[in-house]
């Protein structure tokens, strides 16, 4: 056991995009049952420190694996793909982005904005699921296509963040 294992290994999982999320969270709880600092409340300082490091690592691994986008990026990193290089996005995707952005902006002054925002978010999620399937289909065959899917996911995540931002504004936080 060492700190250099990859996140999948920590959970004893094969490196695949499709994950059984219930299984992941079950494994997560089991690991923390052994490693969380509360188990070491009356241990030596060194053990406390180690348990804090391990527990933090398991938390980071869980957070990465449970989010499809973070998991996708992580898989590309494991494969050594340069994720800072931006692929060219298909025009159709960009058009869709512009439309979605415009739609989101129009909700700001819409009296039924909050309700429409809920529908909007469902749509963003649907696009996101499509991108996940796309990534899964190409991740082992075509790095460039996989990277494109991830890049598109990032666009959608930003869009979702803007939707949340607007929601907070409409709820006036």
């Amino acid at each position, binding site marked *: 056991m060492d700190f250099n294992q990859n996140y999948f290994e920590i959970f004893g999982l094969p490196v695949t995009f499709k994950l059984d999320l219930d299984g992941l969270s079950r494994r997560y709880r089991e690991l923390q049952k052994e*490693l969380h*600092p509360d188990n070491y409340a*009356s241990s*030596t300082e060194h053990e406390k420190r180690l348990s804090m490091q391990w527990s*933090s690592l398991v*938390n980071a691994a869980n957070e990465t694996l449970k989010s499809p986008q973070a998991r996708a990026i992580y898989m590309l990193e494991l494969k050594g793909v340069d994720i800072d290089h931006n692929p060219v996005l298909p025009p159709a995707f960009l058009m869709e982005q512009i439309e979605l952005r415009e739609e989101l902006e129009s909700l700001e002054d819409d009296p039924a904005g909050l309700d429409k925002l809920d529908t909007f978010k469902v749509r963003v999620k649907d696009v996101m699921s499509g991108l996940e399937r796309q990534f899964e289909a190409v991740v082992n065959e075509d790095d460039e296509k996989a990277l494109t899917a991830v890049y598109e996911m990032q666009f959608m995540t930003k869009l979702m963040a803007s939707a949340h931002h607007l929601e907070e504004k409409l*709820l006036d936080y």
Partner: protein
Amino acid sequence: MALLQITEPGQAIDPHLRKRAAGIDLGTTNSLIASVRAGVAETLPDQEGRHMLPSVVRYSEQGVVVGEDARVQAAEDPLNTIVSVKRLMGRGVNDVDTLGNQLPYEFSATEGGVPRIVTRSGEVTPVEVSAQIIRALVGRASETLAGDLDGVVVTVPAYFDDSQRQATKDAAQLAGINVLRLLNEPTAASIAYGLDTGAEGTIAIYDLGGGTFDISLLRLTRGVFEVLATGGDSALGGDDLDRAIAEWILQQCGHSEKLNPSQLRGLMMQARQIKESLTDKDEVDVRVDDKGLHFEGRLTRVQFNELIASLVDKSIKACRRTVRDAGVALNEIDNVVMVGGSTRVPLVIDRVHDYFGTQPLNNIDPDRVVAIGAAVQANILVGNKPDDEMLLLDVLPLSLGLETMGGLAEKVITRNTAIPTSRAQEFTTYKDGQTAMLVHVLQGERELVQDCRSLARFELKGIPPMVAGAAKILVEFRVDADGLLSVSARETSTGVEAFVEVKPSYGLTDEEIMQMLQSSFDHAQEDAEQRSLAEARVEAGRVIEALGNALDEDGEALLGESDIALLRGAIDKLGSLADGSDTRAITEGIEMLGKASEEFASLRMDVAVRKALAGRQVADIDSEYS
């Protein structure tokens, strides 16, 4: 010094060796202490049978008075009677300015730093006032449990930021107790609820107390209490409902001048009574007759609801955001549990019902659950239940970040990240030959530095001069299970290392705390020495016991005979040092033993990790066949 005995493997814990542990709910309005006795967690009453201790501290001519006796004097002696001090914890003088005239105290005019309240016993800080409340509770517990407490879990609102948490921990330290853990109040409540009902699934804990509001979403699975997300407002509670009524009364009186402290306090107390009556009654008669204040009339529930609607809405908005952060749908939430005295307000119950679409549960005592949950956790952490399966997994309530160019806050760890956690971010220099870098640590969700809470500022010096952008500075954030942060910064591109580690401070330095500790003794010097000796001995005892237990459990499996003998020898050595009275020798002995056992500790951790994975495989097989 107490004789240290080590439990043989397989031997049940001898009742005489059972440790005394307690959970403290340090509330804005009421505080409680609870303990597990004969397997049952219960709150401990005072001699008059009262469980709740009003969180009121009066500096009287005869000395410090805490609780009900202080509370009844609050309007007569407002300047020396401190109520709702929790609202000031971890806050600076500037925050007090924004809380404004609502506080009938005199603050001493110190620039920056911690607000100091002027009383007849001198200036006191919120940390000291809180320490008085903790002392009163601990005194009660030591009496009931017939001995000093070995360890205490203190609860804090889940939405407390780092400064507020640190201040609470300091208050406990000042009260002279061993803090096992800071525990989030809704998480503590969920333990009590979970153990009481045996329920599993997703629950929401809605905790509206006297001064703070928390909403936490948790998943309960086989003894694991996993917080999915948390949110709230650390300045929203019953006090604000009282204020809404008080303002209404002033309006009715046609009064616009500043009230004197006594009037203000009296009015707030009256408002609270009116509010509590409106829980059961549809309307309440209101009568005020006090120097310039005259009004006779009534307040109906309907009017009251209007007065507080926006406050209750604020809490529902926080729920909405937290549900979203948790990534659960409303219909996936199995139960909503109400905690805190203010969840008795009918409008609160209605709004929570409307939003979650389910009747909230208030059948478990909303006043005591937090203390009871904390007691259960304290009992485990102190070591009374070695094989317990319970585990709490909590999250960071507010994002942590750094100031970047242009007064912007860049997030390093986002809110609702599971803790403990650590994250590093790389920065670089922006000027040629730059040898120092200012690191400004922030907490909050907003984009501008000025809208976030400033936790710490420090300078990383000694960066070797290089062209702009060549230096690599790694800033690492670490958050422990209490939600407390420490930050370090390191220059990594050259062999040279500049390293700074700070714990954010909310204005009180460690030295100031030490000073307060010392001045709380009569013969400061002598007693302080006695105290450090006593503390060193207790710590030595803890280390000896921890390592002894570890050797009993795993020594033979992991170490050769000579290594075991070496460690046992080192344990004995520390034992005899602890019998002596040389504090420094004991402290050094503790350090030596720690170093000597590091290798063993690492081996044990490896085993734990392997066991965790093995346990998983067994569970997998289970679920395949079930």
